[in-house]
């Protein structure tokens, strides 16, 4: 080992700094975007929320309801997280010019790396199966219209990233002469090494260095890729599940702004001609754009993994309607991401989500139930219906009839309220 810092230490520090720096920059952009939504204020039921984080986010309890993909996902997730402990060692080595600094912990190091290697192989194969499910088996939920173009490419890119990173990790170990000679923890890489051990030492060293550098640059690249990808869910799933619904799924929020007005209307003492207090802007009802949605709804959109479990359970989608709850989430995210660029020239309603989609929903909550990360597409659909009805009076005509019936006879059909008890004596 030469004097510290060597040129490679400096280069490493620069790359590492740039990687972490750009990531931080993008995360701040992300937070700023989510803050464009309406604030939700402090949330109640904290205990239950933490429980959800533990079971649903960390334990992936909803994911394993589909056992095949669920268990493989748990494997890839755990594998990937655990193997990344190794990144810590790489960073220290890279910055300080050490080599496998954690070796000082003794034989446990071998066991640790051995486990990492096994996980790396398992992750590799699970990812291959994921790729096959998408591209060869063509599972229906991965081939909906909203999954063409970038979303499809994105999903495959993530899988390639993971395959390559796992491969590099194993190859790095296999070509590391000192590590192989120690013969501890090279459970998998040992057999690769036996194939290449006759190669010149210098060549092995070069391979090791290339793998080491590509691996860490790849990881930093992957980290920075997150912001542009559905893979962001590996970070956002946790806050998203925390803010997920803890009340019964059928309980739709009552709009406080409406309550105030209805109370005024029903209060005989209130002055109907009273002017609005000066400077108050009448509140907009419902949502026509992402800025009308709540911050939790926007967080939902940024968290969506595009897995399509919601859509595959959606009765409207299964019977050929345009509605796809996944598309609702993806549109919301895409519009939010494009907000700085598009500005007011576009909006979520009509430019992204059509009215036909909104009116096809039965509010059955199958999508909410199916979502592994507690996303609530129905709440967005409802907010947009509220805008259509309360701001634009643009309900389907049959619903207008229904609503005027309710208003006039307190029933959705044209029957007389006085006759409500007639069934008793019929």
């Amino acid at each position, binding site marked *: 080992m030469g004097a510290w810092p060597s040129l490679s230490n400096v280069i490493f520090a620069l790359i590492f700094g740039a990687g972490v720096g750009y990531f931080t920059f993008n995360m701040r952009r992300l937070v700023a975007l989510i803050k464009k939504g309406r604030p939700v204020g402090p949330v109640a039921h904290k205990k239950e929320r933490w429980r959800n984080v533990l079971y649903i986010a960390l334990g992936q309890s909803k994911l394993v309801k589909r056992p095949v993909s669920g268990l493989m996902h748990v494997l890839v997730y755990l594998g990937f997280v655990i193997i990344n402990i190794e990144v810590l060692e790489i960073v220290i080595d890279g910055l300080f010019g050490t080599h496998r600094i954690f070796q000082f912990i003794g034989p446990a190091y071998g066991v640790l790396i051995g486990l990492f290697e096994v996980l790396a192989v398992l992750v590799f194969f699970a990812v291959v199966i994921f790729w096959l499910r998408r591209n060869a088996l063509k599972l229906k939920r991965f081939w909906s219209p909203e999954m063409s173009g970038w979303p499809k490419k994105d999903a495959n890119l993530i899988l390639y990233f993971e395959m390559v990173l796992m491969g590099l990790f194993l190859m790095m170990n296999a070509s590391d002469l000192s590590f192989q000679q120690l013969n501890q923890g090279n459970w998998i890489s040992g057999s690769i090494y036996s194939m290449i051990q006759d190669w010149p030492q210098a060549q092995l060293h070069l391979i090791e260095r290339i793998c080491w550098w590509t691996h860490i640059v790849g990881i930093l690249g992957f980290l920075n890729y997150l912001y542009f990808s559905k893979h962001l869910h590996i970070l956002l799933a946790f806050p998203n599940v925390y803010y997920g619904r803890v009340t*019964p799924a*059928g309980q739709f929020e009552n709009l406080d702004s409406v309550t105030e007005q209805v109370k005024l209307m029903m209060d005989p003492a209130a002055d109907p001609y009273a002017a609005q207090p000066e400077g108050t802007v009448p509140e907009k009802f419902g949502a026509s754009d992402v800025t009308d949605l709540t911050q939790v709804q926007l967080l939902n959109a940024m968290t969506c993994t595009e897995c399509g479990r919601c859509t595959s*359970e959606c*009765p409207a989608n299964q019977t050929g309607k345009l509605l796809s709850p996944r598309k609702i989430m993806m549109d919301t995210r895409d519009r939010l991401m494009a907000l700085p660029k598009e500005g007011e020239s576009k909006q979520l309603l009509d430019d992204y989500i059509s009215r036909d989609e909104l009116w096809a929903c039965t509010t059955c909550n199958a999508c909410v139930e199916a979502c592994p990360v507690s996303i609530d597409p129905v709440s967005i659909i409802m907010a947009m219906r*509220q805008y259509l009805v309360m701001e634009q009076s643009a309900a389907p005509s049959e*619903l207008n009839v229904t609503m005027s019936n309710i*208003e006039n006879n307190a*029933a959705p059909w044209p029957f007389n309220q006085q006759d409500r008890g007639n069934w008793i004596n019929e």
Partner: protein
Amino acid sequence: MEKALNVPTMAECQAQGKLPEVLFWVGCAGSFDDRAKKITKAFAKLLQASGVSFAVLGAEEGCTGDPAKRSGNEFLFQMQAMMNIEVLNGYGVGQIVTTCPHCFNTLKNEYPGLGGSYQVMHHTQFLKNLMDSGRLKVSGGSFRGKKITYHDPCYLGRANGEYEAPRALLSALESELIEMKRCKTRGLCCGAGGAQMFKEPEKGNKDINIERSEEAIETGASFVATGCPFCNTMMTDGVTAKGAESKVAVMDVAELIAKAADL
């Protein structure tokens, strides 16, 4: 053994100075829809047979506002809610039972925020309690050994987590309960919710109730049990559209129990 129905209104009860044990919230479908009225009556008979003191609001009841809210008309919903809450609170109502999961959900979950807090039960929950406490005898009668499949109403199941009460009642009928592939948390909607009942479905390649009815018919059950007047309509229409109405009857859980007891 037709026994005359004796259903007092809250106003009548109040005039006599006695508050009933529970208010039976009939709902719009239960009041006006011919098919749903039969469910209303069957349930009222069961209440009567169990010796439950109950009353209805009659002309003082109004739509809970569920279809308005799900259409996006929060104004109309809250107007309906406030009017109903005024009536309910005026009578000091404590416990409500209803045969409609939509009314159930709205009364239970959305009224408290507007000043109306009651103990609200779906009729299958209420009947199960009556059965468990021995007030209601449920036995098979003509349904013994018959194959029954149960369709989970979204607003009872997923929306409020009640999957067991109706099933417990059906198994007390000594029937053979066959589950559809999509049941309980994964139960497929009948297509009526979210105010869809009151409009034509959006363009697609199939109606949701047909998809669901096919699944129900495929189980080979002779009865499709439901717990919702709207599911009942949807499934009845679906079964008829498939020409299976002579083999498969769509009935509410309350109707099955009442029929088994020859009420």
